[in-house]
């Protein structure tokens, strides 16, 4: 490694507490109080919550008018269909820490477009959407979306005509929100799995519209190495 390489800052020092945490955990596992697998599962669960369940909820709603009605009326109940129990899910059994159990699905129409923000902090429906993106928590997004929503949306590449009502949803109390966008053209006859793929996280926050061919699994840009090494 070259000398001018800058390391990301890290705490290069082991504290007594770090050692104690490991010692307690190892003894507990050895005594059979819990298993290593249980411990891994919980840690990974907390780190890998993602927007997939909400994407599936939207796909189901597009396919089944009855389910759409349920989703709009009772988001918590509808979430059960995609495997998310807001009330009994780990770890607190009434929503993940600092989350509440009121979940509202805001239905777009061809003339109404919802977009979600939390001006007071960064409330986000974590049990069903995972952790919020960094930009969602910035003052830039939080302050400006309520004041200049069309300007902010166009910074995301979303320009909407004047006959569409833009409705900003400010998530300030106990409800958490997601957007149910309009099903795009060109998806006729698609399966639930196909539809789920095009409902990306940004569509669920409301800063993007779903479109055929644009999925969360799109190939990532690949950069060629500057100094390739020939094996």
């Amino acid at each position: 490694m070259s000398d001018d390489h800058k390391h990301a800052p890290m705490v290069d020092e082991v504290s007594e507490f770090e050692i104690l945490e490991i010692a307690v955990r190892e003894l507990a596992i050895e005594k059979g109080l819990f298993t290593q697998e249980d411990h891994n599962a919980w840690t990974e669960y907390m780190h890998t919550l993602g927007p997939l369940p909400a994407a599936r909820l939207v796909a189901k709603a597009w396919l089944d008018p009855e389910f759409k009605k349920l989703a709009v009326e009772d988001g918590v109940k509808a979430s059960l269909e995609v495997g998310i129990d807001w009330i009994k899910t780990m770890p607190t059994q009434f929503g993940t820490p600092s989350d509440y159990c009121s979940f509202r699905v805001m239905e777009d129409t061809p003339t109404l477009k919802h977009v979600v923000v939390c001006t007071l902090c960064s409330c986000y429906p974590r049990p069903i959407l995972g952790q919020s993106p960094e930009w969602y928590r910035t003052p830039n997004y939080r302050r400006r979306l309520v004041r200049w929503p069309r300007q902010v949306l166009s910074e995301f590449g979303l320009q909407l005509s004047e006959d569409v009502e833009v409705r900003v949803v400010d998530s300030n109390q106990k409800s958490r929100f997601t957007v149910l966008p309009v099903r795009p053209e060109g998806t006729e006859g698609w399966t639930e799995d196909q539809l789920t793929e095009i409902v990306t996280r940004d569509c669920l926050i409301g800063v993007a519209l779903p479109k055929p061919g644009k999925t969360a699994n799109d190939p990532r840009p690949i950069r060629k190495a500057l100094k390739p090494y020939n094996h």
Partner: protein
Amino acid sequence: MSNKPVYDREHHVKKATGIGDPQCFAGEATPARFKVGDQVRVRDLPDLFYTRTQTYLRGTECTVSALVYESPAAEDEAWDNTDKAEWFYSLVFKQSDLWSDYPKTFGGDTLETELPERWLESA
């Protein structure tokens, strides 16, 4: 230890576990003063300690779009006063009512948010 005042620090978890919050406050509010479709105005109350009522809403008229749940207001709950629940309303504002310079071209744009009953008065 036995001389310490006894305070139940886990009363919320005991109440909400397996039921949900705000679900655990259902049925505790005084009857709702407003209904869907009512025109109301956000009051400009003092907020000395804690509030979740945005400053930019104060004094603005809006329409009740839903009665969403019953819960203690954030102003009380922040201090663990949870014995007085009230109705929470989802409210729709016209952007042009919130911001005097909002572009007229987009006069149909709106904003939706939730407030507890104490912050609302009939318009």
